[in-house]
């Protein structure tokens, strides 16, 4: 067998070797990662299972004859909380697999020898991970529509859910990729990321009857997930105005900015063939 393929004739000799297209490489990476996620069926299975969960919640809510107006608002809040929880979890798990998974599967080296910058690789993987959050949010829209239209909070609920969820997803997705780049083992990366998420979600599940002093307040406000969800609740359930509890958005916003910034600046240095003492 002999190789008779002529090199791609795309212009000058220089072009022949580098290609003439200046399309952003992170878009190419993002597109392929999204295709891997969605055409392999993994993403679709996740959103399918999520829709089954929401269908159960919505059906039980709609058949509850005793449901009053306020409880219906709370059910809208609940659906959005599910959407943020599932979307962020999926984003985090995919991010946590982003670099350490490629290392374990032996596919990272071939990516590193291309002229694509490490930053583009990371950026593309983050975008692909965020597609899971976007998908879970889109799936939740019809359920929010059904539950919210009767109580007049549809637009507010969707805008809030998308804005807060995106902030949290960007922040935690970035953290997941940083963990992944820093871990040699994919198992360690995913475990650490899920554990982090559990810690962040735990305060949101504490019974409301517990005494809530300054410590709980600090715990809430320092936690991007808890404070983001609290902001959604304050507007949808308690009927507060947009600016009233804006301070609750500080942590999700800072997390997104700091984690995202750290990922873009420090991440490239972490994207190497191996991590650890013998890292090269």
């Amino acid at each position: 067998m002999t190789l008779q393929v002529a090199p791609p004739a795309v212009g000058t000799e220089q072009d022949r070797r580098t290609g003439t297209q200046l399309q952003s490489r992170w878009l190419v990476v993002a597109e392929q990662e999204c295709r891997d996620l969605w055409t392999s069926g993994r993403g679709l299975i996740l959103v399918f299972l999520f829709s089954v969960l929401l269908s159960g919640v919505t059906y039980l809510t709609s058949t509850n004859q005793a449901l009053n107006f306020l409880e219906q608002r709370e059910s809208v809040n609940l659906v959005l909380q599910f959407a943020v929880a599932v979307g962020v979890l999926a984003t985090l798990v995919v991010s946590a697999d982003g670099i350490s998974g490629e290392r374990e599967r032996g596919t990272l080296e071939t990516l590193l020898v291309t002229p694509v910058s490490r930053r583009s690789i990371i950026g593309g993987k983050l975008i692909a991970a965020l597609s899971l959050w976007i998908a879970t949010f889109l799936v939740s829209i019809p359920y929010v529509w059904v539950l919210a239209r009767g109580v007049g909070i549809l637009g507010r609920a969707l805008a809030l859910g998308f804005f807060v969820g995106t902030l949290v997803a960007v922040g935690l997705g970035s953290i997941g990729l940083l963990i992944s780049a820093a871990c040699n083992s994919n198992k360690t990366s995913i475990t650490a990321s899920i554990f982090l998420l559990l810690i962040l979600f735990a305060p949101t599940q504490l019974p409301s009857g517990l005494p809530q002093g300054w410590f709980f307040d600090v715990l809430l406000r320092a936690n991007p997930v808890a404070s983001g969800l609290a902001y959604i609740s304050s507007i949808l359930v308690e009927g507060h105005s947009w600016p009233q509890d804006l301070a609750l958005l500080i942590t999700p916003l800072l997390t997104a900015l700091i984690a995202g910034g750290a990922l873009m600046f420090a991440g490239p240095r972490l994207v190497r063939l191996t991590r650890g003492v013998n890292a090269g």
Partner: protein
Amino acid sequence: MIGLLVGVLTWLPAPAVAAEPLSVKVIVEPVHLETVLGGRFMITTEITNTGAAPSGEILAHLNVASIEGSVYVDPEDWSPNRSQQLSLEPGERQKLSWEIQAVNAGHFAAYVVVVPFGSNVAGNEALMISPLVDVDVASRSTLTAGGALPVVVMVPLLLGLAAAGVFFGARRRGSDR
């Protein structure tokens, strides 16, 4: 019921002297409105200082009570910002507005109570209460199983079909020889 509420609100430990009424006049509008469950409406109150001296810091506070007596009302659910502070010169009047959402169905009364506030409290002032706003909230069905069923069934069905299509399509591609 209203009389009882007013009595409770104006009760004070028996002072040594009779309570001094606040020198304000409170007008509220509309006096009657009808809405449906979930409907939003505004109540506007005009408070006038009828005295010869400045009113000092006063607080106008909105309350909602059920006239029928069978519905539990948490005014916090109806309007999150129910207190507004103001201070009036003699003869001055000021309009205040409250945005309210009817979260219960039934027959209710909304009213505004004006009380001295902060350092202005001397301890022997009577409260001024606005006339009642008669609020009739009609019940409506905001969520039914029939209305939710299309979404509950179709969304997972479509997603499941898509997932199955992708899964079996990939298997067929993989088994191509």
